[in-house]
């Protein structure tokens, strides 16, 4: 008992309901892991829909996939991997107590995240001009012509389904990026203002960022790559 009182007296950041800092830090991280488990199920439903419908309607999905700008997806994967590196370095510096470096790496991570969103916006705008957005303007003339020529017009609704899933999955992922950048901004500001220095919290935000990267690591091959050779 007196030991616990001493623990709390010497560590002002130790919250009253924890015994010591190690328990507090482990709980912080476990909370984030549990949240990420729910995120896996959140994205999981969409991955399931994609896997299932690609299997059922492979022709239409291959046509849709070939409409995407693969180099943009490639660049974005690279950008996200670099951002994961800078995030890992931020966590590393946080554990070493180098607050200035933490802020620097967090800002770098935010810039890379913004570049990703910029490239994504460029892709969405291109899709808009090619009339590929279901619910808004889905009437891709060149595709309809091609499908008519090859006698695969029955694939058109499946191409549309591909784009529904494409926008739902990449949109949800982009939303996670926006939230991630906002969280990084708050974290960087608090560390910069010296109001905040908790290594476990920086690491938890890092876990979230890496998770969003991890989702993209699967989205990129599934959406852009696997049907590059499957030309109708």
């Amino acid at each position, binding site marked *: 008992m007196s030991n616990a009182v001493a623990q709390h007296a010497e560590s002002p950041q130790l919250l009253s309901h924890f015994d010591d800092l190690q328990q507090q830090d482990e709980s912080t991280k476990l909370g984030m*892991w549990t949240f990420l488990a729910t995120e896996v199920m959140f994205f999981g439903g969409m991955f399931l829909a994609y896997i299932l419908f690609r*299997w059922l309607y492979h022709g239409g999905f291959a046509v849709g996939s070939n409409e995407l700008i693969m180099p943009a997806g490639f660049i974005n994967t690279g950008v996200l991997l670099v951002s994961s590196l800078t995030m890992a370095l931020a966590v590393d510096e946080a554990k070493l107590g180098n607050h200035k470096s933490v802020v620097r790496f967090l800002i770098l991570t935010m810039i890379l995240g913004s570049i990703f969103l910029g490239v994504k916006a460029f892709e969405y705008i291109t899709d808009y001009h090619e009339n590929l957005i279901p619910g808004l303007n889905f009437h891709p003339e060149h595709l309809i012509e091609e499908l008519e020529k090859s006698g695969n017009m029955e694939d058109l609704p499946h191409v549309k389904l591909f784009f529904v899933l494409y926008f739902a999955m990449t949109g949800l992922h982009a939303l996670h990026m926006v939230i991630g950048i906002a969280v990084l901004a708050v974290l960087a500001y608090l560390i910069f203002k010296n109001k905040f220095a908790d290594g476990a919290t920086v690491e938890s935000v890092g876990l979230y960022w890496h998770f969003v990267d991890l989702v993209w690591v699967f989205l*990129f091959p599934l959406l852009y790559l696997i049907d590059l050779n499957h030309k109708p």
Partner: protein
Amino acid sequence: MTKPTAHHPEIGGHHSHRPLYFKIFAALMVLLFLTVGAAELNLGELNLIAALGIAVVKAALILLFFMHFRDSDHLTWIVGLATVAWFLILILFTLNDYNSRGLITSMPGK
């Protein structure tokens, strides 16, 4: 800045993992080029397997090293492995359902 109250169980004992992170990052970039290269080749069914296989390796590198899953305690491992298990139930059971529909054509009593 480095006041003792910022004491973390890993501080003091913590040494920078920076060289490791750069190695993992280099491996991830190599895998990224590999997956795009493999996708350009016409491998038939292998295209899908190669793409997903490389994605799983990349994910494992991020998870184990960037997310420190490797150094996490047992409780975190349980949460992580349960997540994978539930995700696989979601995917595999549903695919199994769709794949087996219509397999049983004559059922006694039906």
